[in-house]
């Protein structure tokens, strides 16, 4: 999934023509980042907000971005932060306790207009939503985005060993949840 070589051209373009370069960045990454965000915030409307905030934040902090070696991991890190910010906002607004946010988001799935998964997919999503926040992010990045642990360690600022263990824990918990469901 990593595309550092293709991104080199994009980074060079950003240095010479920031508007054109940024437009290509949005075109290339909007879909991929949207799905990453959507799996974290669940609701389409929230994902839409977080996606726009991600790119606006990237645009505002373009000077940092130009010094980064990997555009891909930098954007994922911003998208993850924006998703967590939005989840925290939902927690406050819904007066939901921190522990209940998984249940709260799971409840949003079935009522969502933009979700048409079957029973197995709903179960899987519910199982994922029972995971602690960080473990859920690690699981999603590995399982759905197929991100390497090396890239993930840059996104989450966590060692590869801890990420491997975290993913392993997540899989065990999900399997256990599905067996009991």
């Amino acid at each position, binding site marked *: 999934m990593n595309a550092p070589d293709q991104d080199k051209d994009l980074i060079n373009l950003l240095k010479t023509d920031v508007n054109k370069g940024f437009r290509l960045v949005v075109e290339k990454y909007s879909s991929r980042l949207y799905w990453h965000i959507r799996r974290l915030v669940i609701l389409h409307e929230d994902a839409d907000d977080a996606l726009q905030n991600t790119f606006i934040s990237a645009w505002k902090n373009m000077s940092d971005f130009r010094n980064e070696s990997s555009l891909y991991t930098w954007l994922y890190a911003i998208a993850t932060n924006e998703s967590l910010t939005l989840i925290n906002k939902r927690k406050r607004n819904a007066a939901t306790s921190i522990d209940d946010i998984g249940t709260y988001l799971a409840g949003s799935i079935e009522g969502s207009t933009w979700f048409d998964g079957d029973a197995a997919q709903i179960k899987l999503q519910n199982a994922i939503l029972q995971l602690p926040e960080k473990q859920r992010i690690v699981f999603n990045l590995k399982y759905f985005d197929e991100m390497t642990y090396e890239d993930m360690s840059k996104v989450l600022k966590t060692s590869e060993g801890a990420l491997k*263990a975290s993913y392993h824990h997540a899989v065990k918990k999900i399997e256990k949840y599905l067996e009991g469901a």
Partner: protein
Amino acid sequence: MKRIDETAGKNPFRVPENYFEDVTRRIIAETAEKEAEPARPRVLAGVRPYLAMAAAVALLAVLSYVTVKVFMPLKDQRSIPEISIQEFSDSYLNDIDILMLEESAGSLLFSEEVPEVSQTEIIDYLVLENIDINEIHELL
């Protein structure tokens, strides 16, 4: 992973029609109104000439000091009075409460406090030691 893999490759989430074209347009329009943050000016770049001057002056000062110390007669140098170990212990150590000294040293040497080690650090260590991930999972 068998149970999880039953749903692999299927995305249960949906988006409105033409959503990605639409959101791309909205993002471009919104960012076009805002200026991109200009590249941060390098703080050191502006003061570099002054730093060079300051370094040159400091170097001159050091060289002058060394020159004066090497070539000037020793008449003004005061020797430090020699003091025996016995005198030192009689005069200085008598002023210190030995019990207090032992207590503070003891608390440092025989402290039972174990430094806190996070789970992440333990996992990192075990992974580095090539401990099987299943064993780590069972241990933690």
